[in-house]
C-alpha cells in the first residue's frame, strides 16, 4: 500500500467494529471490542510509517478529489491525534471491559466505536461539511454514552448535552452555508484562499467559532459539561473529556488558521483568550467547590479547556516565534490533558468503586488500601497542575514562552493562577485520601486491569513531558509556517 489509502482503514475499522458489536450479543461485545483493537493499531501502523516516510498523506475518497469529492488528509496533526485517540480508547476499552459492572452497559461498545469513527473522521477530514457530519455523529454518540446509565441525572445531562451539541452544530452549519456561498467549495484548502477580511467570511467564522466553543464547553458555555462528564460511566467520562471536546477545538483551530490570514482578528482572538482565562479560573474555582469526585474532575476539564483557547490570542498577530511556541504548547497541552484527564477519570472511577461513594469526603483511608489508584490520580494530577516533569508542565512552559515572546504578559497570570488553582483541587482529593481517620475496612477492589489502565494513562501523561520533542516536530505543519509568515 502506498499509505494514503490506508488512511481510510482508520475510518473503516471502527465502523466495522461498531457494526460487529451491534450484531453481537451483549456479553461478547466488550471482549470482542478488545479483540478488534489490535486491528485498529494494525491499520494505524502503516499509516504512520508512510507518513514518516513521505510526509502528509492524502486519499480522495471514492476516487474523487476535492473540491468535488472529499479527501482524507493525514498531516502530522491528524495522525498525532489519531494516535492519541487510539491510545486513550484502547485503555478506556480495557477499563470498561474489565469493569465488573452489575448493570449491563453493553451498548457502550457500538457507541464507543462510532465515537472513534467520528473522531478519526474529524481528525482526517479536509472538508467542512464532512466535518459537520462527523461532529453530529460524534455528538450523538457522546450523548448516547452519557445517557447510558438511564438515571434521571444521566438523562438530564444527556439532554442538556444534546441541546448544546445541536445548537453548536447548527451554528457551524450556517457558517458552512455562508462559506460555500463565498467560496463555492467545501474543501478547507479552497477556503484558505478566501479573503479573511470579507464580511461573509467573518460572520461565518464567528458563527462557527461560537458553535464550536459551545461544543468544546468553553466558559461560559460550559454549563452542559460537568453533569455530562461527571455523571457518566468512568470510561465514558474519560473518552469524552480526553477526546470529544478536543474534536471541536481542533476544527476551530484548523478553521482559524485557514480563514484568518489577516491580522485584524486580534480583538476576536483576545476575546476568545479572555474566555479561556475565565474558564481557567471559573473551572478551577468550581472544581474546588465540588463535593463529588467525578464532578471535580469534570470541572477541571472546564478549566483545562481554557488553556487551549489561549492559543488564539497567542497565535493571532504575533511573531513567528511566539506563534510556533503557541502551536506547540497548545497541542502539547491538548495531548497532556487528554492523557491525564482520561487517567484521572479512570482513577476516579476506581476510587469511587473502591469506597462505594461518589463523595470526596468518603475517600478517607483509601490511600492505604488502593494506593495504585490514588497514585494514578496523583500522577494525572501532576500533569493537570502543570508541575514538572509532565506533559502539562512542558505545555505550560511553551505557552509561557509564547506569551513572553509576544509580550502578552497578562496570560502569564492565567497560566500561573490556573496552575495553583488546579493544585488546590487536586490536593483536596489527595488530602482526603491520605486521612487516616476512622478507618473503614470495606473497600471493594477494582480489577487490576482497570487500575493498570488508569496508571498507564497517567504515566504516559508524565512521559509526554520528556518525550514531547519528537511528537511536536511531527505535528508541526509545513503549512503553519506559511500561515504564520502571512500573519506575522
Amino acid at each position: 500500500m502506498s499509505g494514503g489509502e490506508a488512511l481510510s482503514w482508520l475510518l473503516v475499522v471502527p465502523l466495522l467494529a461498531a457494526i460487529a458489536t451491534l450484531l453481537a450479543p451483549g456479553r461478547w461485545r466488550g471482549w470482542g471490542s478488545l479483540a478488534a483493537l489490535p486491528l485498529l493499531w494494525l491499520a494505524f501502523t502503516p499509516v504512520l510509517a508512510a507518513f514518516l516516510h513521505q510526509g502528509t498523506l492524502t486519499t480522495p475518497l471514492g476516487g474523487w478529489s476535492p473540491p468535488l469529492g472529499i479527501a482524507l488528509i493525514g498531516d502530522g496533526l491528524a495522525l498525532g491525534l489519531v494516535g492519541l485517540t487510539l491510545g486513550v480508547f484502547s485503555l478506556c476499552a480495557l477499563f470498561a471491559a474489565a469493569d465488573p459492572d452489575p448493570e449491563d452497559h453493553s451498548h457502550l461498545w457500538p457507541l464507543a466505536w462510532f465515537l472513534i469513527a467520528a473522531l478519526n473522521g474529524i481528525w482526517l477530514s479536509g472538508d467542512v461539511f464532512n466535518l459537520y457530519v462527523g461532529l453530529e455523529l460524534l455528538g450523538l454518540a457522546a450523548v448516547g454514552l452519557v445517557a447510558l446509565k438511564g438515571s434521571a441525572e444521566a438523562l438530564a445531562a444527556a439532554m442538556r448535552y444534546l441541546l448544546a451539541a445541536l445548537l453548536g452544530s447548527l451554528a457551524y452549519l450556517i457558517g458552512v452555508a455562508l462559506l460555500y456561498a463565498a467560496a463555492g467549495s467545501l474543501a478547507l484548502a479552497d477556503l484558505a484562499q478566501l479573503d479573511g477580511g470579507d464580511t461573509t467570511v467573518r460572520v461565518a467564522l464567528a458563527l462557527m467559532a461560537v458553535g464550536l466553543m459551545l461544543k468544546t464547553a468553553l466558559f461560559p458555555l460550559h454549563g452542559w459539561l460537568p453533569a455530562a462528564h461527571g455523571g457518566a460511566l468512568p470510561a465514558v467520562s474519560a473518552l469524552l473529556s480526553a477526546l470529544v471536546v478536543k474534536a471541536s477545538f481542533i476544527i476551530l483551530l484548523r478553521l482559524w488558521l485557514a480563514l484568518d490570514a489577516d491580522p485584524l482578528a486580534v480583538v476576536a482572538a483576545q476575546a476568545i483568550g479572555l474566555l479561556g482565562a475565565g474558564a481557567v479560573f471559573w473551572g478551577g474555582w468550581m472544581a474546588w467547590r465540588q463535593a463529588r469526585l467525578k464532578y471535580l474532575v469534570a470541572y477541571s476539564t472546564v478549566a483545562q479547556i481554557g488553556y487551549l483557547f489561549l492559543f488564539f490570542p497567542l497565535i493571532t498577530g504575533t511573531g513567528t516565534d511566539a506563534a510556533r511556541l503557541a502551536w506547540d504548547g497548545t497541542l502539547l497541552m491538548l495531548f497532556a490533558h487528554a492523557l491525564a484527564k482520561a487517567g484521572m477519570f479512570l482513577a476516579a472511577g476506581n476510587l469511587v468503586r473502591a469506597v462505594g461513594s461518589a463523595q470526596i469526603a468518603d475517600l478517607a483511608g483509601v490511600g492505604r488500601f488502593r494506593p495504585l489508584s490514588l497514585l494514578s490520580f496523583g500522577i494525572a494530577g501532576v500533569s493537570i497542575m502543570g508541575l514538572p516533569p509532565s506533559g502539562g508542565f512542558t505545555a505550560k512552559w511553551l505557552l509561557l514562552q509564547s506569551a513572553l515572546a509576544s509580550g502578552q504578559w497578562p496570560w502569564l497570570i492565567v497560566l500561573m493562577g490556573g496552575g495553583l488553582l488546579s493544585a488546590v483541587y487536586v490536593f483536596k482529593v489527595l488530602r482526603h485520601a491520605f486521612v487516616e481517620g476512622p478507618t473503614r475496612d470495606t473497600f471493594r477492589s477494582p480489577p487490576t486491569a482497570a487500575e493498570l489502565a488508569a496508571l498507564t494513562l497517567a504515566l504516559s501523561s508524565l512521559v509526554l513531558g520528556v518525550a514531547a520533542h519528537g511528537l511536536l516536530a511531527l505535528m508541526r505543519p509545513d503549512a503553519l509556517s506559511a500561515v504564520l509568515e502571512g500573519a506575522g
Partner: protein
Amino acid sequence: MSRVIVAAIASLIITIALALAVLERPTPTLSLPNLASTAITPGEAGVLHPITAVLLEFRSIDTLLEIAVLLVAVVVALALREAQPDGADRMGLDNPLLHAVVKLLLPLMLLVAAYLLWAGSTRPGGAFQAGAVLAGCGVLLRLAGTSLHGLERPRWLQGGRVLGLLVFVSVGIPPMLAGRAFLDYPADLAGGLILLIEAALTLSIALALLSLFRLAPPQSDSPAFPDRRKRRRA
C-alpha cells in the same frame, strides 16, 4: 419579559449579521455544478442523477457517516430502553376504518417506495425518500396496532437496521484492497453497486426511523419516576 427582550435583541443581531453576510457575499471562483456535470458521464459515474451522484459517489463518505448517525440514534434509544425497561406495548387504535385505510394504502406506499428507490439513479428520489415512505408504512401499521411478527424479532430487526451501513462499508472495502481509495467502485460496476447500497439503505433507514418511533417509552406504560425502579439484571 426582559428575557424575551434580550433574546429578541440577540436573535436580531444574528439576523442582521447573517443579512450582512448575505448582502456582502463575494462571488465564488469555483463552480462545483460545472465540475459535477462534467464528472457525471456514463463512463465515469455510476449514476446520472446529479444529486444521487453527489450523495453516493462524490461525497459518499458523508452519506455513510449520516447513516451511522441514524444508527447511533437507534442504538441510544435501545440502550435507554435497556436501562429503563418498558412494559408491554399496547399501542394502537382499534379503529376499523384505520385498518381499512391501512390495507388500501399499504401496497400503494410500498409501491411508491420501490419506485422512489428505483428512480433515484436518474430522477429525483432515492434511498432516503424511499426509506421515509417505508418507515411511514411501519408507523401506520403500528398506529393500526398490527404487529408484524416476523419483524418483531430483535435479531432480525437489528440485522436490518445495520444492513445499510454494513453493505455500504463492505462495498467500499474491495477497492481499497485493490489499492484504490475507499468507496472507489470500479466504473463498470458502479451502477449496480450503488443500487445495491441504496436498497440496503432504504431498508435500514426505514427500520431505523421506525425503531426510533417505537423505542420511545410506549404510551400505555405508566411513568416510572422517580428513578428508583430496580434495574433488570443483565
